[in-house]
């Protein structure tokens, strides 16, 4: 099933459902929702950061970085390093968890 929906390698939406679901759980456990509204996370729905129910996977990440899975994963894990000056702090997630979170975010964009 995961293989069936695998997009061509150059696609930004290169993710599988399982990774996206893992990413959702990671995002919930790490407390991303303390600042962001995120689909599939009922509580909390913080307002300090952008509403990510509107994440479209197209524009530059945080207005600065090319929107690729690698950049997105790096950004959600350590935003100030990926984009100097970002007020979003580094989050306690591992690199593979960050990739799952990126898959989750691209999943939002796909719906």
């Amino acid at each position, binding site marked *: 099933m995961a293989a069936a929906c695998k997009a061509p390698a150059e696609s930004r939406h290169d993710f599988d459902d399982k990774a996206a679901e893992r990413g959702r759980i990671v995002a*919930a*456990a790490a407390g991303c929702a303390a*600042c962001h509204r995120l689909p599939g996370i009922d509580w909390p729905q913080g307002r300090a950061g952008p509403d990510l129910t509107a994440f479209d996977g197209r524009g530059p990440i945080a207005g600065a970085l090319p929107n690729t899975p690698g950049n997105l994963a790096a950004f959600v894990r*350590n935003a100030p*390093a990926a984009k100097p000056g970002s007020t979003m702090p580094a*989050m306690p997630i*591992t690199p*593979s968890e960050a990739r799952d979170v990126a898959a989750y975010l691209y999943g939002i964009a796909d719906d």
Partner: protein
Amino acid sequence: MSPPISMVLPMTDAQTVFDAWWGWPPPVLDPAGPYAESVTVLAWALFAMGAVVTAIVAAALYVALFGPAKLKARIGGEKTVWIMGIAFPGVVLLGLLVWGLTLTASLTDPIRGDEQRIRVTGHMWWWDVEYLDAQGRVVLRDANEVHLPVGRPVVLELRSADVIHSFWVPNLSGKKDMIPGRTNLLKVQAEKAGYFGGVCAEYCGGPHALMGFVAVAHEDADYRRFIAGEPLGVPSLAEQQDVPGQLPALARRTGAVAPVSAQAGAVGGALDGEALFMANGCAACHRVAGTEANGLAGPDLTHLSRRLTLAAGVLPNNRGSLQGWIADSQAIKPGNRMPSYDLLSAQDVAAIAEWLDTPR
């Protein structure tokens, strides 16, 4: 409100109350010390008794509907009513009453004087926690979590600053009300190190459902470090295994990443978090030892960097959730007594969070 999603995590090590409550057996049936043990035994006994009574009633019903007339005549008399309807329940209930009362009394064992004393004061909707020495002097002031030494009895002095709350750590003991103007004592003892979820078990208005805490039982050496205010050793993310699809619970617990100030491109460090904290009125409600901040209306923030959770057990404590809380606590815990600071710039919030997150 539907339960936060972190409840679905099969975490072995808990972080927020919700995580601590997840898993099997449920905390009420998973005693971690002698006082909870007796409650668990009573709970199973009551359950067994209920099962027996249900079986007797079902059997009687069966006989009444389909049983032979002779049997019905034999057991249908007044004698059965006297025995099964009055004598049997009378004896059983009396026995249970005596058991329950002695058990309740044993939960408030006489204080011998050598126990660790911890004073917990319920507030709408958080917990003030003070560690006392034998003379009752405050050694350490903290909030929203209760740390216990493994294998030693602890006397909790439970009070309330406003309405009635109730202190409940199912793994450790039964519930005990916190009543304004009174100090209720509760003796607990943890026999194994670990993280146990606790909640307020008495509706106290507003975001009562988001009033929890985490109880942490430490081995002796760790406990002494805790009381001395030292940082609690947590491996940094780099030392932890990165197993795809599996959550490293330890990192999750404290948000163990490099301090943001040490990272390239960090914003907070450039601004004076302490000055912003004072200028924005935070100090009127919060105490940070060693600074001018001496407010009492909110949790003591001195040792915030060691805290597992934020906002009374409900958010994992990391820099992100801390910034989200300061910027807009009302979005997270509606009705709580801290105003949202949504007019502060994100840079100012980051600077304040950076300063609060410094071990002290």
